[in-house]
């Protein structure tokens, strides 16, 4: 029996999403359907045989990497399986922890659909059609960002507007690029393509000045929903963007490509880090953290000729787990405490020490604190940037310091009791379902930080699909 891999990683999750949606009122069943199917797909991608043949007893299933839809091809190739395993594994983890009252019930089915659409976007041919699949994923994300019972906030509308603007730009760039695998350096097409493509990706990745919706959306949406979206969307778009550098030699050899990417990367780190330091709301800090991380990824891509893509890929699992931890702890804390302003969280560490630690450890791990997951990669990345440009390296360092300062402000607020609770003693008010995941994740983040090459390097196998970037 012969099947195509897209059936497994694109159509099957959509079917499971429909089932999970049908049973959305039976919370446990809905969670199990979404998370178990995601974990199963992640495990399958991680351990799929290279000859694409599955033998289950007498049943032999042979898989093709490609299927044809309406004259175009949809592929999920073996080389990209490590990345597929990661995104489905993380989707499962987010679905598993989606039982909080402040998380929309539609989050589980919609997150599965979004992951399936992003998987399809990675493998559609011509690959520029991915823009339409990404736009569909954006549309699907609206109900989980803008929840019923709340007034439509401007951030979500701005998000929708900007993402919709990016789609025509990428499709137009695709048309300009069609049939021109190579171009002479003096071709007038090169500046046209560079501007259209650059603008499209800048909007998609919320690069300044297209960032304004990020903190607005983070402020008003459930933190775990925001964490999921801000992991899956920029990460997949960044990996998708490598297609362009891989396929078009003239883009790889653009004279100022590395400097431009490095400049914007540094700018995003400084902007995200310094603004995070002055925020008075934890959810908005998370928003600026996302901007900072986009900057780190751009910085890594800017060194693509010196192994930067490996660092970008190795940062993805570390960032995913960090985002999950911050999202989980903030959602639980919001559920317990209500508001997440610095004034409102005074002394919460005395009542919810594990949730508070979860927020802080997650933030510090993403910021690159020694011993935690992102540190080994970020230290190499900052050193490389420093070697390439002392000024940009210094600014990147300052931006990261901003995030540390923000974390210190949050720590100070969490451990300082307000006047009403001055005599309150330290106690544990969390349930095991709240603190056990935080403890497990903390241990995992430390292990990743201690042995990055053992536990993070596997994902770099994804880069073998980009043959020109080896």
């Amino acid at each position, binding site marked *: 029996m012969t099947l195509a891999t897209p059936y497994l990683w694109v159509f099957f999750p959509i079917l499971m999403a429909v089932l999970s949606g049908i049973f959305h009122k039976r919370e446990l069943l809905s969670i199990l359907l979404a998370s178990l199917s995601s974990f199963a797909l992640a495990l399958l991608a991680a351990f799929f045989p290279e000859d694409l043949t599955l033998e289950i007893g007498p049943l032999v299933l042979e898989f093709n990497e490609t299927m044809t839809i309406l004259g175009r091809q949809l592929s999920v190739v073996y080389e990209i399986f490590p990345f597929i395993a990661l995104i489905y594994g993380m989707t499962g983890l987010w679905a598993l922890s989606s039982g909080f009252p402040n998380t929309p019930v539609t989050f589980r089915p919609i997150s599965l659909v979004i992951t399936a659409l992003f998987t399809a976007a990675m493998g559609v041919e011509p690959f520029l059609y991915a823009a339409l699949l990404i736009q569909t994923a954006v549309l699907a994300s609206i109900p989980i960002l803008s929840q019923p019972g709340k007034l439509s906030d401007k951030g979500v509308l701005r998000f929708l507007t900007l993402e919709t603007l990016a789609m025509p730009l990428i499709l137009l760039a695709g048309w300009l690029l069609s049939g021109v695998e190579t171009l002479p350096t003096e071709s007038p097409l090169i500046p046209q393509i560079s501007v259209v493509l650059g603008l499209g990706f800048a909007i998609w990745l919320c690069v300044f000045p297209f960032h304004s919706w*990020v903190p607005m959306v983070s402020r008003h949406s459930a933190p775990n929903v925001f964490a999921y979206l801000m992991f899956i969307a920029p990460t997949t778009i960044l990996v998708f963007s490598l297609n362009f550098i891989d396929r078009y030699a003239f883009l790889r050899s653009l004279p100022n490509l590395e400097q431009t990417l490095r400049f914007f990367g540094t700018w995003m780190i400084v902007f995200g880090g310094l603004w995070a330091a002055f925020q008075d709301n934890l959810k908005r800090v998370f928003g600026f953290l996302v901007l900072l991380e986009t900057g780190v990824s751009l910085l890594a891509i800017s060194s693509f000729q010196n192994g930067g893509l490996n660092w970008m890929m190795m940062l993805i699992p570390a960032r995913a787990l960090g985002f999950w931890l911050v999202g989980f702890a903030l959602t639980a804390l919001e559920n317990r405490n209500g508001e997440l302003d610095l004034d409102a969280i005074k002394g919460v560490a005395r009542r919810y020490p594990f949730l508070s630690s979860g927020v802080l450890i997650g933030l510090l791990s993403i910021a690159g604190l020694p011993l935690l997951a992102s540190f080994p990669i970020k230290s190499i990345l900052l050193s490389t940037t420093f070697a390439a440009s002392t000024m940009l390296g210094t600014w990147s360092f300052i931006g990261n310091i901003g995030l540390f300062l923000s974390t210190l402000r949050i720590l100070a607020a969490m451990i300082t009791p307000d006047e009403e609770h001055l005599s309150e003693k330290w106690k544990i008010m969390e349930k095991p379902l709240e603190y056990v995941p935080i403890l497990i994740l903390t241990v995992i983040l430390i292990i990743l930080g201690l042995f990055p090459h053992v536990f993070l390097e596997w994902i770099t196998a994804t880069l073998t699909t980009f043959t020109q970037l080896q």
Partner: protein
Amino acid sequence: MQSFSLAAFIVIVITAMVILIFRDWRINAIALAIQYLAAFVLVNLSWPITIAIIKLIVGWMATTAIGLTCLRQMSTEQTTESTSSLFFRGLSGVLMILIIFVLAPELQEKVFPSLDLLIVQGGLMLFGMALMQLGTNSEPYLVIISLLSLLSGFEIIQAGLERSTLLTGLLAIVNLGLALVGVYFITKNAEYEPEATTDEESPQ
């Protein structure tokens, strides 16, 4: 055929101006429906009628979904606006029309040499007016109508550049998805009962 296309282009300019100037959902829904008809005529210059009509059907479906939701959810009272705001939006629309007329020939010559100038002008007109609209309001149903107009403008140009069934299908999904998002926003806002004051915040 040329005069028919010219008439379609003029209709596009008028409907885009109407959507930009007026805030009444009834006027905007009718203008959007007529705009889709004119866009269909321009798409038909590049595609056979059997495929081009998909754009019209999808556009009308999107307009109907938004129109019916507005009819159910929004106040039937006439909204009065000051003459100065109408005048300002009209003036900004005229400015955009002038910009498009100046830019379109050069853009057609340098970027889209294979396309008819009328197609480039029609597509850019919708795109530009929608951008202007997006910049001047944040009312959910107007944002969605502007985004539908913007996509319609893009589709007029895209139709001349590439013919693909999958692309047409995916764009239809995106258009209908946008309309559904519009319906979601309109319904949600109509059912919203304020518990606390919402803060107007700056992004930074």
